[in-house]
């Protein structure tokens, strides 16, 4: 019992709050500086979406923990706030403002946790006239085997990048054959063999990889760069090798594998998120200020079709006016190919409303608390 009380005392102490806030400041400061090296995505992953921040010594495998990560600090602050609130706070009308502020803060911390865990951001890149029913991840990649033998549908077997990276042999019931991973590179430059001084020996026996060499390069977390993930994989069925292939998200089209009369398309690509509806880009407009290249406005006119919901309408998506549909938000994000390709950012965040609610609660709490003090102050002065 005494131990529990001590634990509670520890978690509800103001000292812990101050230490956590100080460490949070250090974390933000160091993370901001490291953005030069890692880019925004890399910093988010290393400092804020982690429990512990490790320092890696140059040219060494040694990693030492140096700071608690964002999840740890956020979690401890959350527990600290809840325990302090329950163990010390007495609910009275006079303190209703503070209560609302605390509830708002707790909601904000929770929403950050849930957003970090559950929100998905991807992008939809389509040309004018093109219809798509999927968006693609910015960074995550997947290896897919697509069985095209059925005339009505394609059967997709998806192996996420992490599974390929962590396993030498992937033997799952879901897959049509076993996958042996010979090499996995997180980021590479793919070059043609005849473009480099010496030919490299390769174990690849099939596909476009016969003419290619993957040169491993450091991983990038920068916003305007992406990793070219490449793997050398072998397919095995009934103990018999079906060949060794090079797969990479730098290759723009799938490679063909024919086995037992079935045609498979194999591909390494940005992870796809299929939707139950289709979006067609009718027109992309990019207005510039006259006589300059300075953009005035850019917008995508899209045709949204969702047969199950009898949805069939045109929508104009432009800056600060996203399309919100079925839990997804489509923002106008970019363009390409002389203004004939539109890039929409697709965000699915079931908790997107919580920060608004928590800010509203905190605002009401602050107004309530200050108003009460103001009333008391005015009353005193009038006496």
């Amino acid at each position, binding site marked *: 019992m005494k131990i529990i009380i001590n634990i509670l005392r520890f978690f509800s102490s103001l000292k812990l709050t101050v230490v956590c806030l100080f460490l949070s400041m250090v974390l933000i400061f160091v993370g901001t500086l490291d953005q030069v090296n890692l880019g925004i995505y890399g910093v988010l992953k290393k400092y804020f979406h982690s429990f512990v921040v490790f320092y890696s010594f140059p040219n060494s495998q040694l990693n030492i923990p140096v700071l608690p990560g964002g*999840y740890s600090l956020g979690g401890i602050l959350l527990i600290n706030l809840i325990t302090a609130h329950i163990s010390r706070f007495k609910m009275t009308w006079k303190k209703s403002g503070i209560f609302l502020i605390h509830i708002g803060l707790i909601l904000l911390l929770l929403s950050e946790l849930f957003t970090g*865990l559950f929100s998905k951001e991807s992008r939809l890149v389509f040309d004018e006239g093109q219809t798509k029913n999927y968006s693609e991840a910015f960074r995550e990649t997947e290896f897919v085997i*697509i069985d095209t033998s059925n005339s009505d549908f394609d059967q997709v077997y*998806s192996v996420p990048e992490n599974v390929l990276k962590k396993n030498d042999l992937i033997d799952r019931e879901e897959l049509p054959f076993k996958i042996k991973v010979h090499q996995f590179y997180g980021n590479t430059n793919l*070059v043609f063999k005849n473009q480099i001084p010496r030919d490299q020996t390769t174990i690849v026996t099939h596909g476009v990889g016969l003419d290619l060499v993957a040169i491993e390069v450091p991983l990038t977390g920068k916003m305007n760069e992406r990793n070219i993930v490449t793997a050398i994989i072998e397919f095995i069925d009934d103990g018999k090798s079906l060949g060794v292939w090079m797969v990479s998200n730098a*290759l723009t089209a799938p490679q063909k594998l024919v086995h037992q009369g079935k045609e498979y398309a194999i591909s390494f690509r940005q992870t796809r998120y299929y939707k139950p509806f289709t979006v067609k880009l009718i027109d992309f407009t990019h207005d510039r200020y006259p006589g300059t290249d300075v953009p005035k406005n850019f917008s995508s006119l899209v045709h949204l079709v969702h047969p199950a919901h009898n949805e069939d309408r045109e929508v104009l998506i432009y800056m600060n006016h996203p399309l919100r549909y079925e839990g997804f938000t489509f923002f106008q994000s*970019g363009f390409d190919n002389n203004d004939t390709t539109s890039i929409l950012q697709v965000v699915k965040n079931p908790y997107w409303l919580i920060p608004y609610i928590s800010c509203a609660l905190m605002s009401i709490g602050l107004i309530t608390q200050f108003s009460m003090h103001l009333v008391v102050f005015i009353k005193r002065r009038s006496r």
Partner: protein
Amino acid sequence: MCNIFSRVLLRLSLLITLFIIGCDNTDVTSYQIAKEKINFVNRINTPPSTPKVASQNQQINRVTWTAPADWIAQPASSMRKGSYLFKNTSGESADISIISFPGDAGGFAANVNRWRRQIQLPPLSEDEILKITKTTQTGNSIIFIIDFSSEQPILDNQKFAQVIGAILNLKTESWFFKISGDKDTVSSQRKNFHSFIQSIKVDQKNKIAGKQTQTAPKAPAPQSAGNTNFAKINYTKPENWQLKPNSPMRVASFKAVGPNNLEADISIVPLRGDSGGDLANINRWRRQIQLLPLNSLSEETSLEKIMTDSGEFTLVNLSNDKTLPNNNFKPRILAAIFHIDNEAWYFKMTGEDSIVTSQKSIFIDFLKSVSFTK
């Protein structure tokens, strides 16, 4: 109260921990999708592609060309930015490819030698390649053209192979234009290929999208010819100067060879604005040959004004009597600065003292031949 609360807290912590651990749901999945049209023709996105983001300020090089009417356009394949086929009446064909690579793609000589290897020719040194290289100009960029045929009938053991290639080095990438095939067919297209090379245009501009880039002006930085539209320079190359492939910043590079095979490097670099002022640039050159910087231009005794039809050049002649350890010779820099509108043009000859001194009158004649057109 405390007891109940502690239990609730422990359970809540356990729940959140399990929840977080359980969130790594990335595993093998299988699902059905509506049939998609699959194209098995593969290309490689090299270098790692950069998604264009609305708030990104990107420099793009739009290289355009006009192909002769009798070249048949082919679908882009592998890394080709453009592909054509020429077929004569007897069915002989020549392949025309247009490829771009980031940076200098291994260097000028390495790429020419790669082409030479393709038709079983031995590699040459850069100097040897430069001797057989012709040049032409598009805007401020120089295109190097090489033309060679195989020494043996390597095509079906009956025909000689021929390659005519052109290399265009831009600031961030290199472009390779090549026609290859049997000697007779390629030779018949030599004139067409040269017209094709003459039609190449480089439209370099900064593509800016998104409001953020406009509201956050950046500090002015020196910009080289590779990323902005400078005045077009015209000049007459001295006979004993050899044109060299460009490096970033330079619009032209030459070398002058003197006795004992000593070389002087000549460069032309334009910069936006005054790029720090003449004194800062002269001090930069002084530091390059380990001379102390000056406090004012009046301290530089070697300054001369050269009047030409284009205007006034400021000539500076710097030398160090000491042999520098990294060169093993006494260095000299002969440089001229020319200001036109909002641009500063720097002409610089660097090398061993005697070779640069012997080239001074040629350098001044070269400056006199320089003219600019907007």
